[in-house]
């Protein structure tokens, strides 16, 4: 490694990290449940991306490439269990609205609720609603059918509703819950 070309590639890589990595850390926090694990996951994938960087041509969608790495790496971590996050069955008490820690408490509560979902459901919700990916792309990323993505979406949302205060969060009445489809 050396020479002008590698320096330019390095500069491009650093610029990409500078511009986009934080966005992926936020998505990773939803997958992993905490910020340290999220940074760990993103950094692990950035090392892989750096290795692959010289082979990537200019037409590659770098965000999509990194996102695929994140999903696959998180899945392999989860399967290996050696970094597995402990699922939580209950949501901790939320701080009062006037509490200065309220924003943190709300965010942590939602992340913990996500952690209580099966990994596949959680990934589907994050990819569909945080990354705004269409069903077909989520299915491709996760290696399953579009129908399975829709099923995971439906079940994931239903479970989130059970864990969180549905009316407050979703603005949907009890009557509407069971019939909703996405």
């Amino acid at each position: 490694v050396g020479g002008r070309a590698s320096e330019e590639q390095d500069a491009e890589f650093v610029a990409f990290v500078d511009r986009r990595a934080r966005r992926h850390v936020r998505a990773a926090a939803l997958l992993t449940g905490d910020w340290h694990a999220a940074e760990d996951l993103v950094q692990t994938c950035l090392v892989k991306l750096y290795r692959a960087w010289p082979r990537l041509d200019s037409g590659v969608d770098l965000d999509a490439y990194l996102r695929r790495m994140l999903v696959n790496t998180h899945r392999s971590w989860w399967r290996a269990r050696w970094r597995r996050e402990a699922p939580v069955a209950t949501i901790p008490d939320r701080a009062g609205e006037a509490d200065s820690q309220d924003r943190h408490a709300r965010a942590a509560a939602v992340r913990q609720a996500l952690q209580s979902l099966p990994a596949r459901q959680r990934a589907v919700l994050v990819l569909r609603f945080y990354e705004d990916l269409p069903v077909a792309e989520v299915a491709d990323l996760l290696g399953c059918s579009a129908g399975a993505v829709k099923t995971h979406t439906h079940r994931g949302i239903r479970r989130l509703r059970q864990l969180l205060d549905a009316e407050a969060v979703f603005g949907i009445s009890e009557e509407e819950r069971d019939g909703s489809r996405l």
Partner: protein
Amino acid sequence: MDHDSDRDVAGAVRTLLVMATGDGPPETDLMDEVCRRVRRQRVRRRVLVPSLATLATASVLAVAALVASALTGTGTPSAQARVVAAAGRTATEGYRVRMVSTKSSKVPAPSSVTQTTEGVFDPAQRTGRLWNQDQGLEARFVGDMVYTELPAGLRSGGKRWLAKKRSADADQVLPAFVQLNKLAWQDPQRALAQLRSAAAVREQGRASGDGWSGRRYSFELDDEVKRGTRVTGTVDVDQAGRVRRLEVTDRLTTNAGRTPTATLHIIMEFRDYGAHEKVSAPPAGEVTRAPDMPSRTPS
């Protein structure tokens, strides 16, 4: 369940997920850890094969030398790229800067002058203010204009400020060391931009200051007009990837570089990132305009 309800639920989940990422920790420099891991992988690959093959005879010193060689080699995002990125990142949010400049000369007689300048800049608003504590003078940067306070002896007709247009290109043909020396005084943001032409950038190790820690890099200015000058320096980059300290030494020499005749040493310390201070142009009645100067671009 109709499509409107579907959209409502989708929107609610999006809101929920955005809320769940609203308490992120202070931003750290992800690249620091990425660099460390790339290095570690490289070391493992280099060390593993010889250590297995020559396990019986390899000495601890030989392995240590191998590790040291790998750690100082290339193969991580280059130090130059890190410094260039830091210079760019620093120019995106407000900050305060303190500059201490010492000019030493051996001719015609040994002398040394030190000056201290404080400043605050807001790159987003393109405003800034510098004040020289020793001379009690101020300069204001507003958009494309710079207003320099005139010393009392040069003021006339109530005109206290000299206005001049900041030109992005006018100084491009000057040698890098002239640009840096000039810009450090006139416009720290553009002085930082000079780091983009830095060459021979090498990581030197840890650096820290009041409330921050990071890495130090040494560099030389890539100067096409190097005759009789040598510009070297160090730049400290914090964990958020911002420049915290820039130290530059410019040695002017004669006799083909053998005899140093003058040295300019500048230390710029950056702090209070996120700082904002409203800076406005002086009253029009107090401003005199500098005459347009002919272009320096060679014909």
